């Protein structure tokens, strides 16, 4: 718990420093801009809801990265898993759209998670059985996942009624993730928060979570007491993939209302950043995802009102990441070497 608080606090401090430096560099008054960002991100109910909307897929993608990271795996594949999850869930939606019932939404969600789990599992199997590095394989699978969605959306799933823009038919109400309090924030956020709490408890207190920690900390010792590294590789990658798949299907269902290209606005990469900043802890990821969600929303608003391109949000994320890496690297230097 303290680690979560610490990581969030440090991230905020780092962001203020980095953000101020960035604005000075582009010739804008730093304090004014930072204040504006805070307002745009969290200033009123609408901003907060928009930030939460962005935070939901980011948080889920961060969790998708954190689960394998607990075993020491560096997966960057949340985007691909997100896409394939959306793909799988949409397939079920299309199949049931003609005669929808109450069962459609759960089926869509479960299939979405399974699709993502499958995509994560592919990378997991490649790593466990063959030893293919998971960072590179997930990066490649990201592109394939995205292209698969494009293939279907531009092809056999294309809604003929929608002339201007390629997409599927809209999700029927029975397959739409319900929204909360009449805002754009949807129940996916609740799922994410439940995952955060449940996942935290599970990873910290369960036998499985402890086994992951042992294997990551000292593979030889884990081997010695009979823990199976390879099986855990596949399991963690699949679980992570499932969570990202959930993000994908929720985005398609609740936010976009249909499956279309450009489903992910870099949520996978941002999720990776959040996971890292959170020190790969579930609890830390939640507030950080909200903060970064606010950052992105503020970036969009800055483009409208202050003529600062929205891409500044991406630059700020990059600077934040670099700063966090530098700080943790320097901190490790200070501590005595092991053994």
């Amino acid at each position, binding site marked *: 718990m303290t*680690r979560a608080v610490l*990581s969030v606090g440090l991230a905020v401090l780092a962001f203020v420093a980095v953000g101020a430096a960035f604005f000075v560099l582009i010739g804008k008054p730093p304090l004014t801009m930072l204040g504006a960002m805070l307002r745009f991100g969290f200033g009123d109910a609408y901003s907060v809801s928009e930030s939460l909307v962005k935070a939901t897929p980011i948080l889920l993608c961060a969790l998708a990265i954190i689960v394998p*990271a607990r*075993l*020491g*795996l*560096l997966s*960057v594949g949340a985007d691909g898993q997100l896409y394939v999850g959306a793909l799988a869930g949409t397939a079920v939606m299309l199949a049931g759209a003609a005669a929808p019932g109450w069962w459609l939404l759960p089926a869509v969600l479960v299939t979405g998670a399974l699709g993502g789990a499958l995509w994560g599992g592919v990378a997991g199997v*490649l790593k466990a059985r*063959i*030893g*293919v*590095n998971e*960072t*590179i*394989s997930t*990066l*490649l*699978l*990201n*592109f*394939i996942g995205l*292209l*698969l969605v*494009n*293939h279907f959306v*531009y*092809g056999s799933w294309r809604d003929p009624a929608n002339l201007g823009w390629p997409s599927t038919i809209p999700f029927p109400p029975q397959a739409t993730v319900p929204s909360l309090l009449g805002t754009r924030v949807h129940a996916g956020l609740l799922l994410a928060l439940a995952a955060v709490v449940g996942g935290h408890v599970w990873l910290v207190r369960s036998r499985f979570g402890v086994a992951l920690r042992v294997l*990551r900390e000292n*593979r030889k010792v884990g081997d010695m007491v009979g823990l199976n590294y390879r099986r855990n590789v596949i399991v963690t990658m699949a679980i992570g993939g499932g969570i990202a798949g959930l993000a994908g299907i929720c985005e398609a269902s609740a936010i976009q209302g249909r499956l279309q290209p450009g489903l992910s606005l*870099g949520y996978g*990469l941002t999720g*990776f*950043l959040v996971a*890292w900043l959170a*020190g*790969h*802890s579930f609890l830390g990821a939640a507030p950080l995802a909200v903060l970064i969600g606010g950052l992105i929303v503020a970036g969009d608003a800055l483009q409208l009102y202050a003529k600062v*391109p*929205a*891409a*500044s*949000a*991406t*630059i*700020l*994320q*990059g*600077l934040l*990441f*670099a700063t966090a*890496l*530098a700080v*943790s*690297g*320097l901190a*490790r*230097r200070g501590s005595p070497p092991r053994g």
Partner: protein
Amino acid sequence: MGEAALLAWAAATLRSATPLLLALLGETLTQRAGIINLGVEGQMLAGAVVGFGVAATFGQPLPALVAGGVAGLVLSLVHAVLCLGVRANQIGSGIAVWMLGLGISSYYGRAFIGGRVTTFGPLLGMSPVIWAAILLVPVVGWWLYRTRPGLVWRAVGESVDNAHALGIRPRLVQLQAILVGGLLSGLGGAVLSVDYTQTWANEITKGRGLVAVGLVIVTRWNPFLVLPTALFFGLCEAAVLRLQAVGLAVSSYLLACLPYAACLAVLTIVQLSARYGRDMPEGLKDVFADSRTSG
């Protein structure tokens, strides 16, 4: 297929392959010294936007390419400082560089969307840049295998400790490797925007830089194999465009998967074969092995 069509395919393949070739060459050299840089994508993007900007402003392609290379080099400095200076995790650092490149190129590229630039006139039917890139491959290969600095570079990639015991300064070599990688990938990005597409679009590289990092394994860290590997990727890309134009029934998107899927397939095959362990610089094995995540 008629001769004209064949030539057209070849030309399209070469044009498509060149940006990747440069990035691939750069990352191969970097990984040869034992450093993995996932920021190649960001460096390419930085080179692309800076190169395009210079070309659009001054109308000259050559300074644009140079500027692009320098932009990539400067961005790679971030990776160097993080990896060599504070011993940060190489994968994390590379992704931070990728993010920065992504952001910077979107940021400054906004002004250029839709613009057009002119490039070099053709030399023997193709852009002179392509000829230069093709020639660069054997030059780099010769340098790596037949000169003393190349030998030192390879030794550092195998074992930093052994190199140090032999009187080499490994971190200096690794710094050079990262910077050279940055220069070449920035150049590749500039070639992409200024010479190949001659226009600007957001995320113009479409992951070429990331593919390059993966493809280095396919090239078995051998610069000479960079050319056929890049050509293969270029062929896939050219095929997508051409088949689309012809109106072939195959979905262009499935076709577009081909390079990534092929890369993954070759990686798997290479990993299965015994030669993999032999070809990978030992220094990289620690990076590729289960990297410890922070915290």
